[in-house]
């Protein structure tokens, strides 16, 4: 078990190295001049050159790449061109903001999806099942920015119940760290983006759970459970559901990659100050160090959640031995 985790961590480091390399190249292939954001047109030529040198932008690409990796290994993620601060510092709080939004919507989507999928399969052939499948397919294919806009229009503009963007009302100062994330003001801001993201994430676990649950109907252990005189609820949740959960977790781990893209969109639509929004902004500003670091963080989160999903899977399925 310990060996397994160590091996997975090594794999993660290799994965992160690849992500770092790809994002490094990707941003440099983008059209546009990064020095534009760095340099004020009013600067003299000498000042320009010193600045460019300080950021290492005068070096050829492969030297820049090697420098970047060397710095990374030493824990230096580079300085933001735009904020003129270390990129880690720029992203510091934003990681938490992203995590809160992402985890809360995932948990909601998976809880509702799994329970909903169970019910759909138990009601097979009924109108409820038909409606549920249609809704699941619809949610999965509805673009997030579209659902987001609809919700903003309805709840923020027409009804005026909830704020349309941001994370806190301007001028609001939290007294404690706890209040920062658990105040009514914060939760009101969280609600719309969370619902949007949950709706988007909901389709996949709902449909997969229904499918794998259907397959359990014919299993011998379900027949035995009936013969034992267990109640339908107990059979559905503790026997069929417990087994059907396994493929949902696998699929969920794979789905995390897709969730990443969704996260970027939802943060952008709702002006949520997280990593995803920062990626978009810094890409527009040609602020490579911030964009690259944000990417690395997101990739790290996804890999970590993948590992957690695998550990959870082996916990749920006694037949799986991690080696």
């Amino acid at each position, binding site marked *: 078990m310990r060996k397994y985790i160590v091996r997975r961590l090594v794999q993660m480091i290799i994965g992160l190295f690849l992500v770092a390399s790809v994002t490094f190249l990707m941003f440099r292939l983008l059209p546009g001049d990064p020095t534009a954001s760095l340099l004020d047109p009013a600067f003299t030529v000498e000042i320009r050159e010193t600045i460019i040198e300080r950021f290492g932008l005068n070096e050829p690409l492969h030297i820049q790449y090697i420098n970047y990796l060397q710095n990374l290994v030493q824990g230096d993620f580079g300085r933001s061109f735009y904020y003129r601060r270390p990129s880690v510092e720029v992203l510091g709080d934003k990681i938490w903001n992203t995590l809160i939004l992402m985890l809360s919507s995932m948990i909601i989507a998976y809880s509702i999806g799994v329970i909903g999928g169970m019910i759909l399969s138990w009601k097979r052939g009924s109108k409820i099942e038909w409606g549920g499948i249609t809704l699941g397919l619809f949610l999965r294919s509805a673009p997030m920015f579209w659902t987001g806009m609809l919700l903003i229009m309805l709840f923020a503009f027409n009804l005026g119940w909830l704020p349309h963007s941001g994370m806190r009302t301007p001028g609001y100062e939290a007294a404690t760290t706890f209040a920062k994330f658990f105040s009514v003001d914060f939760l009101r801001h969280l609600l719309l983006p969370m619902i949007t993201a949950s709706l988007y994430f909901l389709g996949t676990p709902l449909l997969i759970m229904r499918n794998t649950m259907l397959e359990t109907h014919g299993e011998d252990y379900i027949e035995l459970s009936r*013969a034992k005189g267990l109640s339908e609820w107990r059979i559905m949740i503790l026997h069929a559901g417990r087994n059907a959960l396994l493929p949902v977790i696998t699929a969920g781990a794979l789905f995390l990659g897709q969730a990443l893209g969704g996260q970027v969109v939802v943060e952008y639509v709702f002006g949520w100050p997280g990593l995803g929004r920062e990626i978009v902004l810094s890409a527009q500003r040609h602020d490579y160090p911030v964009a690259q670091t944000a990417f690395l963080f997101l990739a790290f989160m996804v890999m970590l959640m993948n590992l957690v999903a695998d550990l959870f899977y082996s916990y749920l399925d006694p037949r799986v031995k991690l080696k």
Partner: protein
Amino acid sequence: MALLDVHDVEVTYRTKEGPLKAAEYVSFQLKKGDSLGLIGESGCGKSTMAKAILRLLPDNGQISGGEILFQEQDLAKLSPKEMRKLRWKELSLVTQSAMNSLNPVYTVGAQIVEAIRTHEAVSKRRAWERAENLFRLVNIEPSHLTNHPHELSGGMKQRAIIAMALCLNPSLVIADEPTTALDVIVQDRILQQIVRIQKEISSSLIYISHDISVIAETCDYVVVMYGGHVMETAPVREFFRHPSHPYSLGMQNAFPNLEDVDSELISIPGYPPDLLNLPPGCRFSPRCPFADSVCQEERPELHFIGTQHGTRCHFPDRAEAFRAQAKLPETWTERPAQGQRGVGA
């Protein structure tokens, strides 16, 4: 009063090709503490009857007629909730695929405890102790209770299921070919255990098999099914001394005879009937060497030739002559003139 009185039960499956009657006019009785062997070729409706008694038919199947009187109440008429209370507490089932019937994600012990605690208000601890005793009874080391099913061998899983089937001292245990998936030596041991324990806790047993010799060893009564009908029913000694239905005769020919080791094995030519396309008269008539025109046209009743011995044949009085002729291989190889239908080429 019999513990179980199955009376003219009919089970219908809805299929794409129309309704399929997998059992029809099935009647038999079973007294407390007795064991009954249900035999017949594959597809004759044995498992269907087992599931009908427990009301565990699949969604497309239903009991479309008759009564299943168990402890004087009609199981076919009970509400799902009342039925649930009886299941396992009074009626337990060991299936053909019992080995795969354990839920892979729970320990075997947890699954036995679940069965006990569903029906009796006992503590987990107490239920676990009972599970340990049951494991000893079926010769499994009680420490295996903490294993998951994939950690046990096939024979152990089968015995674990048998232990589970006995955990509430049910009045009736139905064992549907409980040993087919196991090797012969294990089969035999398990069979002996089932019978020993069944006698010990004086529960009744319905033992389903297509192996006539197993039934001969284990059961007090025999019920022979063919194409969804009961063809013959008799106490076990009577059945082997005076088999009366031509199908029973054919079946006894097809298995090695313990008393007469030299006798030749003769199989019945042809195949069981297609239940969607049944012959109008006696269901065995297309394969029966003694069939007459009346056999093809009229469905025979179950005629009683002794108090407990019934045969669904138009000629119960000719049984003596049938028995003599059935011993001769040429009786079965020479096709009866009217027997083309259903006879394999």
